[in-house]
């Protein structure tokens, strides 16, 4: 357990280097920076796959670590994974550890393939946080929305809620397209299975065709346009990330049918125009939240900090879509001012766990002048601890006293007794 009061409390954090002994928030001895400098080295990782979400998540993580009170305690290094394969990411993680990383905040490509490299990192005293995508290695912290019950909903899982809301928009009847993400990833599988479970509740609905949108707007648009060529009378679309491609394909075909999509600015602007739809998906704020969890563990010590943290996220429809005035965070706002940001940007950079987020920080990775972060405490994070019943989804194991069971959302989870 460290005694890092300056950083941990955010009080009097401007101490800086204390005459060769390092910053007053940096420990000595066993908990000193691994590379031997006067700051902890923290790596912020995202995938470099031409995806706005990844860029925003990485930028938010970097920006938060550069804010006071953290900036005196840590040096953040942003590393993008260009070789978007588990092997490439293993190699990169090993390089980070060898370079003296004290913490790594990573978008893990595989829930299992990185485990041995993560284990090795943990054994060398490195704090590992996986955001959005989760890993099964027990020493890693998972910070993800994947099992969260969205704000205002009663059931967990994005897929389940989005399909239910789409069905309600369609009056419980009609034919839909299903645009998946990257088939073979655990995230896509949870979305898919839970969405299909929701569909079971609407026997008058039918999936006309499924295709792989690859979580890419252009791919989704191309595939949707092709599907429309075969099924021009579709009644609704369920679209994963890249849903702006679904909207654009429908617009090109002169159709306006209900869409369930993720969080892009383009889609939410259409909701502002009155397009029937539901916008719900992975918030890029998770990058910044993951960084704050890593810094809490690093600077405050791990005591009391849950390993499984659920990130809250919201459901946006034509009824509650609300502009963020001046593109700044206001409670309940969920779309930037129309025409001020790119189609793939998302106001879900804002999150109740990340009040430090700004549009500028998400675009540049730099905080606003004088911006201060609000560090997490263990008790605050305990309020976001994952429910045991969904633990199997992210850890492929159940807590003690729980056994594996299929949840009503058709996803493997845990039950007691």
């Amino acid at each position: 357990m460290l005694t890092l009061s300056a950083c941990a409390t955010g009080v009097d954090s401007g101490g800086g280097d204390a005459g060769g002994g390092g910053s007053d928030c940096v420990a000595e001895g066993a908990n000193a920076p691994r590379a031997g400098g006067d700051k902890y080295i923290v790596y912020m990782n995202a995938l470099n796959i031409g995806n706005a979400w990844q860029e925003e998540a990485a930028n938010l993580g970097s920006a938060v670590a550069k804010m006071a009170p953290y900036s005196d305690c840590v040096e953040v290094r942003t590393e993008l994974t260009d070789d978007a394969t588990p092997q490439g990411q293993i190699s990169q993680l090993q390089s980070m550890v060898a370079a003296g990383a004290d913490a790594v905040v990573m978008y893990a490509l595989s829930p299992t393939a990185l485990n041995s490299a993560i284990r090795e990192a943990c054994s060398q005293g490195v704090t590992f946080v996986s955001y959005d995508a989760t890993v099964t290695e027990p020493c890693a912290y998972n910070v993800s929305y994947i099992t969260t019950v969205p704000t205002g909903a009663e059931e967990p899982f994005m897929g389940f809620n989005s399909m239910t809301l789409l069905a309600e928009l369609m009056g419980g009847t009609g034919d839909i397209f299903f645009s998946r993400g990257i088939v073979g990833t655990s995230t896509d599988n949870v979305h898919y299975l839970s969405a299909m479970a929701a569909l079971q509740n609407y026997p008058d609905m039918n999936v006309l065709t499924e295709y792989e949108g690859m979580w890419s707007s252009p791919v989704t648009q191309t595939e949707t346009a092709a599907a429309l060529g075969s099924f021009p009378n579709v009644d609704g679309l369920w679209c994963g990330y890249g849903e702006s491609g679904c909207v654009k394909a429908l617009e090109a075909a002169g159709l306006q049918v209900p869409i369930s999509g993720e969080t892009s600015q383009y889609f939410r602007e259409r909701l502002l125009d009155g397009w029937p739809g539901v916008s719900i998906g992975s918030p890029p704020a998770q990058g910044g939240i993951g960084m704050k969890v890593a810094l809490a563990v690093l600077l405050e010590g791990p005591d009391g900090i849950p390993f499984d943290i659920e990130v809250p996220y919201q459901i946006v429809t034509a009824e509650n879509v609300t502009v963020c005035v001046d593109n700044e965070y206001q409670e309940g706002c969920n779309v930037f001012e129309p025409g001020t940001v790119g189609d793939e940007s998302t106001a879900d950079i804002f999150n109740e766990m990340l009040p430090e987020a700004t549009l500028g920080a998400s675009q540049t990775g730099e905080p606003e002048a004088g911006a201060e972060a609000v560090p997490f405490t263990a008790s605050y994070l305990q309020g976001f601890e994952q429910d045991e019943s969904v633990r199997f989804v992210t850890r492929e194991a159940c807590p003690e006293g729980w056994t594996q069971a299929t949840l009503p959302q058709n996803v493997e989870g845990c039950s007691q007794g």
Partner: protein
Amino acid sequence: MERRGFVARVLRNGTVRAALVLAVFLIAWSVLQLGGLSVFLINSWLLLSLPLVLAASGVTLVIFTGEFDLSAAGVVAVTNVLMATWLSELGWLGLPLAVLVGAVVGLFNGFLVVVMRLPAIAVTLATFIILGGLALVILPTPGGRIDPGIIDFFTGQLVVPRSIIFLMVIALLWLLYRNTRMGVHAYGVGQDAEALRLSGVAVDRVKFGVFALAGTLYGLAGAVLAAVVQTGDATIGSSYLLATFAAVAIGGAAFTGGSGSVLGTMLGALTLTVIPKVLFVLGISGWVQRVFEGMLIIAAVLVGAVATQSEQRKVQAVKTTPKVEAPTVSVSGGERP
């Protein structure tokens, strides 16, 4: 002039070129790495390289014959997920069975290319797509379990890290293979299949055997990959589709067939996996890495081509100069077997 001729002769050898490139990167890595290179770092690098070394070696064998094989990534995906699922309960038996699956795919490719006379690119591309889909059916999401004995066999230590031993074994097997009848004939098929056929060599049988051997190596690559990452993942093989050919290019083999060395390809594969390490310590990430890899491939091919043309011009000049005895120089455009 003498020195230029020597340099051109050295650079004309793809394996030497690949060794030089790898040496440069290794020196840069060892100098720039914080705290120097540890045994752990070197072993980790070699282990992660081993599946690519195996898969790219298989691709090289096919390329020697003048054919193409795009199925490596598909076989790696299928054998990887098989190792994590159906074969995981069989213990050690899982390993040869995974390799056998690769061999069967190779035979299937060989049958369609050699017997049915279908174009190799189309056939092996189709095989890649089919196997990629099959892998997803077998294991829809990453996971499964790899036999601990197999993990330890590939990742453990035996005086020196086993990764080093495996690389040496592959190199040794290559040196033996290239002097076998099949090895020599495989080169010949790539250089002039018709001439070889007229001299009585069963060209089709050679090609068939090479496809099967390549499939075997892909199967082994998938099994090794499963042991290294200790999990199954149906999408994990896709990166080998292009990386295997990049390794071949850096290794100096001629894509037209009949020239090159598996040793060069092995060095090319090691170079591809060390580049990210070097760029990391240089603080370079992102798209620059891919740009760098692409430029390296072009440079490797370009240097080889320039060195070869320089040698050819020299031979031409000697031939057209009267009363001078022509030297016995191979002008086949690349490395001799």
